[in-house]
């Protein structure tokens, strides 16, 4: 029996838009086990991003339970929650969200700074990462000087540097051409083999196929 990383029970997310209550996620139930590579699929507005944000603790469910590594996230304080995701979760975004003012090297290094890791250790870790992704030659460039695929590569490197258990990727290839997409997806598959759990949100059937499990969302419900 594989270990459960997280489990979501009867989770709901609503927002108030004017006087209307809009339900973004409606009584979601699912578990994520060690070693999984999950693809969330569904049309725009079906709640994929919201679900990812809630899992990543950037957003909260308004109702229901969320347990991460046996800890009840729904009843946690903000501070502990941020400690938890800092430790175990890495994010990859469609728009890469690299910090424009920092070089490739510095972008990758930033999460380590917030974890208070020593300088020498940081250097070694970033160097490893650059090596692994074959971007040593680009370490002093700024994000604007890179192609979309390269930027996303840096984005993934940054997500991985903290050695997370879980990577949440929101349309990671949405801004890339098909060749670049393929490379990124291959990379995810490789990472998954090495033991990183991945949850990605995607529109594309072919990308979804990389996953070990596909969850379909429609109007905030799992179908």
């Amino acid at each position, binding site marked *: 029996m594989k270990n459960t990383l997280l489990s979501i029970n009867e989770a709901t997310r609503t927002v108030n838009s004017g006087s209307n209550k809009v339900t973004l996620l409606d009584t979601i139930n699912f578990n994520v086990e060690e070693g999984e590579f999950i693809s969330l699929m569904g049309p725009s507005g079906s709640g994929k991003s919201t679900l990812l*944000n809630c899992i*990543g603790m*950037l*957003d909260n469910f308004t109702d229901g339970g969320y347990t991460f590594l046996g800890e009840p996230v729904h009843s946690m304080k903000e*501070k502990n929650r*941020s400690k938890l*995701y*800092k430790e175990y979760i890495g*994010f990859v*975004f469609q728009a890469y*969200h*690299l*910090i*424009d*003012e*920092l070089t490739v090297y*510095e972008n990758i*290094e*930033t*999460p380590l*700074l*917030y*974890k*208070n890791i020593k300088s020498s250790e940081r250097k070694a870790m970033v160097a490893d990462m650059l090596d692994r992704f074959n971007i040593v030659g680009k370490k002093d460039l700024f994000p604007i000087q890179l192609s979309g695929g390269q930027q996303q590569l840096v984005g993934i490197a*940054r997500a991985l540097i*903290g050695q997370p258990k879980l990577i949440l990727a929101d349309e990671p290839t949405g801004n890339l051409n098909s060749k670049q997409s393929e490379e990124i997806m291959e990379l995810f598959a490789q990472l998954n083999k090495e033991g990183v759990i991945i949850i990605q949100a995607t529109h594309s059937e072919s990308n979804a196929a990389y996953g070990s499990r596909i969850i379909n969302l429609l109007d905030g419900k799992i179908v």
Partner: protein
Amino acid sequence: MFKNYIKIAFRNLWKNRTFTALNVVGLTAAFGVAILLAMYAVFQLSFDRFHEHGDEIYQVYTEDSGLNGIEANISKSEPFAAALKDEVAGVEKITRYNGSGVLLTYQDKQLGMGTAYVDPDFFEMFSFPIVKGDTKNPIMSESSVVMTELAAKRIFGDEEPIGQTVSILRDEQQVPFTVTAIVEDFPNTSSMGFDIVLNFKSQNEHAYARTIGRWDMENHEVYMQLAESVQPKQFEKSTTDFTQLHYKNEIDNAKRDGFQPNADGLYRQLKLLPLADVRFANFNQGPVTVSRTMPYLVLGISILILFIACVNFINMSIAKSAQRLREIGMRKTLGANKKQLFFQFWGESILVFLISIGLGILLAVVLLPYFQTLFKTQASLATLLNPSLLLVLILSVLLITLIAGGYPALLMSRLGTLQSLKGKLDVNGKNHLRNSLMVLQFGIAILLISGTLVLWDQVEFMRTKDLGFNKDQVIAFPLNGQLNDQQAIELLRNTLQDKPNIVSVTASNNILGLGKDGSRSTSVLGFEHQGRGVETHMVVVDADYIETLDLNIIEGRSFRKNLASDSLSVIINEAMAKQMNEDDILASQIDLDDAVYSVVGVIKDFNFQELDQNIAPMTLFALPNWNLRNAYVKVSSQNLEQAYTDVKAAWNSIEPNAEFQGSFLNENIDRTLRHERTMITMIGSGSILAIILSCIGLFAMSLLIVAQRKKEIGVRKIVGASVSAITILLTKDFLKLVVIAFLIASPIAWWAMSKWLQNYAYRIELNIWIFLAAGGIAVLIAMLTIAVKTIKAATSNPVESLRTE
């Protein structure tokens, strides 16, 4: 971590270099000027603070009941000081003090020396340390002289000064004095200034010998050191018997004439004025008023200017934060907490502030010499270098960075992660803050501008007012040579007689306005007339005085050419005539102790004192052989410069060793307005800086707003808005702020300025136009500032602005 912050801070500042530059320029100017102004204010406030016993030293003055209510009087009589020390407990030390200028001769050198005549206690009370010679009792003897290091250097050069003999001109004789001690050059924050110190008894006959034992001749100041156990109030109370004893006559007369007693129910009371207040005391308007308004006003202006620059910084930081939302969101996702983000953004602010403060200090250093000349001050940056003051300065700078840099940082660090990742910023609440800060900025600017305009108006009014005498054609100068005054005038008349451009020559013992030598004196005479006490200013004049100054005789006649025949005649002004209240003024007489004088003429009132005072009763005497002090020469109106040169040449031929310190009377009047002019320059430059800084802020805001509304402008143009409609749309919001600022600031300015004008007996009427002008200037400058950007935005091609979306 820290390195990372610094790096990103520099990159960010560089990326937004327009705004960084606007901020740095604004803050640098503000810090530079604020440092200079604060230095000036601190310098003014630190006057006379260097005396070790300063807290125990007081100037003694009396509050007398007079015709016009309570009048403060600092002049004291010869026996007063000694009697006070003997008869009233609590006087630790006491000294009389009289200042004047003397002519000192050493070998073939003749030098004018500022002189303080004091009693021996002087050096024990005041901290003028003796560095050489007799440190105990340097002026015990009446033939001793003490001088400052600087004066000794001027007289003796490198020679040893102690034991040298110099001669000083007194009552037309050279009197020898021996140098007994040298005092350290005192700090330039001393309001007592002198080159040499002599024993009080070494004064000339007129100032000392004839006053011995007389309680009715008051011609010097008295300073005393209070015993440590005695409170000043307590001491003032305990002098009642002393005053009753020595001023019985005056008190009885005041009662008889029905004058109002002072707050303690006394008609004459001894009072103590703390040494530190002496410089800020005003005796011109009845009771003493101690006012430190000027230095505090200057300090206030410096704070306002800093405030304006900081508002710019806050507004720009908040507005620019919209562009950094993604970074904030991303950093939060990567695990940054609020505290870390706060310190990152605050750190960036501190960087800007540090650069600005550094440049500001540099600016202050560069501007210092100009500042010193412009405001005729000796204040230097060293004034600020005292430990406790430095601490205050550093703390206030920290506080400023904490608020101006910290507030935007706090706002940014508090943003929600998802919200900022999506780039959404809730701007509604913050616009209120921005708008009120901008209203405040422009309010301050308008306040300062209208202050400058009113001040300038009043000074112009005082400068150009018809004072009742001819101030354009008359040159006045002090009779500062070796000859006695009558001889000097006689020679001057003879020399100038045949010069075509000289109209007439006269002399008097008072000066109108303030001469180049900066010395002034008034004599006030009190006597009984028809059973009432009457007071009048006493001016002794030479022949042709009335003609030279073009005074108007409204009744009777002027003095005769042959002045000797008029030695028992007086001419009075209207105020005096009114006070004497006679039916036939020309038949009335003035009965003084020594003689009876007949009133032979009445002249129209003229402003012989400054314009902050009403014209007081005044009497002109034609006494023979009196100390006349100042010559007046009326010249023809053509070629005034040539006339001045002629008068100068004449004086130089009569007194080759004396400096010619002549100036036209209108220059003298101008000199009395120095204080007001300093204020105008201060407030004026403050207001210019305030409006420039406010406009820098406005400019930055217009840049940002235009950028933010680019799409809106594009859409509006596509649906048919004209260029002018869009310009008005963009300008309107800002102008609204300036108008609100005007509505708030004007009443405050009106109130403050009318209060200030109360200080002047002769003043302008405030009218609405001054304030409208100030508001108009602000609106106009504001409009010009934003016009560039808004018109450019309004004329740009809408397709371009929409394509970027």
